[in-house]
């Protein structure tokens, strides 16, 4: 198997045309690399453009400055765009399709025969402990179950890169804790490449190899922090003294930015 490419933000910037005056700069001169086999978390205050970074990586948005590149890890040569699938904060399950039809959706678009895609979808659902809910509609499931369907729908595509856009942001606190650990286990087991956008420092430390801390708008990368806590990780990892040090460091960076964002909001209104 050919190793998937590195996703590289090479001075990426994004500016929106404003109603009057200078354009609004959402993202400014981002330089970072998302390495294959690694989980990179992007954390930052609300409105800093974290999710926008995912949209750019996915190819749904074109940067207005700099460029997005895909390169071989070994020699830096240009590479093909890796296959990506997204898990959304709002789940974005198709409400008129059953659980199994939702999971099959991407395979169906690709024209896979019905029997084969059904088998794969069933396997993906089994992998996240959702066997027996095939014929339910999303509305019949709890939030945590819906997001596991969302995860299965993305994973069944066997993406090179998994994009996680605040995947547990709309779940209750306890469900979130459980799903965070399940995702950590899944990521460790599969060695998948993932980009995780999150508000939660705990979630970033639990899941990521690298954490990008963003500034308030315009979004810049304030720090790139390596997480060298041993795996497998769980919420128990918080007992590790190194965890506390990391947490403090990230929180220190974020606190200033959150304050700045709040002052900025007040100035806007």
């Amino acid at each position, binding site marked *: 198997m050919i190793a998937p490419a590195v996703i590289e933000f090479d001075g990426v910037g994004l500016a929106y045309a404003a109603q009057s005056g200078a354009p609004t700069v959402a993202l400014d001169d981002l330089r970072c690399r998302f390495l294959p086999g690694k989980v990179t978390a992007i954390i930052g205050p609300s409105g800093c453009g974290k999710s926008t970074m995912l949209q750019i990586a996915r190819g*749904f948005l074109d940067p207005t400055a700099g460029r997005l590149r895909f390169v071989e890890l070994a020699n830096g040569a240009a590479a093909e765009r890796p296959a990506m699938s*997204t898990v959304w904060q709002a789940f974005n399950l*198709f409400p008129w399709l059953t659980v199994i039809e939702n999971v099959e959706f991407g395979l169906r678009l690709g024209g896979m025969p019905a029997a084969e895609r059904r088998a794969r979808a069933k396997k993906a659902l089994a992998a996240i402990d959702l066997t027996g809910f095939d014929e339910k509609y999303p509305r019949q499931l709890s939030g945590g179950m819906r997001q596991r369907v969302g995860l299965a729908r993305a994973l069944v595509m066997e993406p090179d890169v998994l994009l996680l856009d605040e995947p547990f942001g709309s779940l209750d606190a306890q469900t979130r804790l459980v799903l965070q650990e399940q995702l950590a286990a899944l990521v460790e087991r599969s060695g998948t490449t993932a980009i995780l956008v999150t508000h939660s420092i705990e979630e970033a430390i639990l899941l990521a190899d690298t954490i990008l801390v963003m500034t308030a708008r315009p979004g810049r990368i304030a720090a790139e922090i390596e997480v060298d806590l041993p795996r497998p990780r769980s919420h128990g990892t918080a007992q590790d003294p190194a965890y506390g040090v990391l947490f403090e460091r990230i929180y220190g960076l974020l606190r200033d930015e959150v304050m700045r964002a709040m002052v900025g909001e007040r100035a806007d209104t």
Partner: protein
Amino acid sequence: MSGQPIAERSSLSGATAPATKPAGSLLDDPRMLGWGAVVFVLVAWELIAILTGVNRLYLPRPTQIVVALFDMFANGKLTVDLGYTLYRIFAGFFIALVVGVALGIWIATSARVRAVADMFIAALYPLPKVTLIPLLIIWLGTGGPFMLTISALGAIFPIIINTVLGVRQCDPGLVLAARDLGANQRQVMRLVLLPSAIPSIFAGVRLGLGVSIILVVAAEMVVGKFGLGARLYLAGQVLETEQVFAVLIVLAALGIVVTKIQDQIDIWLGRWRLA
């Protein structure tokens, strides 16, 4: 059907009643009450007509109407008329459904098409479609093409408008999710925009089919040789009042059947919403 009446009855008659029915319980059942009222009116009508000796040209008795109704079906004329009318309504309606949904999706997904279509829809939608009958007769004559056109014209505007509404209300997150999973533009339309608009489209179908029925019957009354509207008009001209009532009964029954079928389709289409 039965859930609601039972709940109402038990809440009215309390916990003591269920074994022996109190005298008022029949009046507490809405279905019994509804049918009872119909029977009461028919019996009263029959009796008053007999007692006052009113001329049957003005007000035939219900029994006479029923006899006329059976006669008209027995000699096959009314069956033919019903067939014509149903064909005209539904053939025109299905043309409107296919064209209307396609146009609606196009309008909803293209700002340019929307800008153009908005003016025409604003002008044509509120226009009473019966006013188009003279012009359509000049253009198309009074045959099949005319009937299908008038029927389709009646249904198409509510269908277009509701399709546009439904597509534009689609959650953009679902479109993004579909694109993320590899959907191209056409697949987004067919597999995301269309299904998410279906409840709204069906609301348009209800309105549109109602207008189609009105227009086809009205057009038949004006120019038809066959069809329920034509039969109604001709019977009225020769003072066959029983036949007029008989046709009205058939039209009312058609309305009931169409409404009930639509209710069932609505439930089936909305199964994921009720779940």
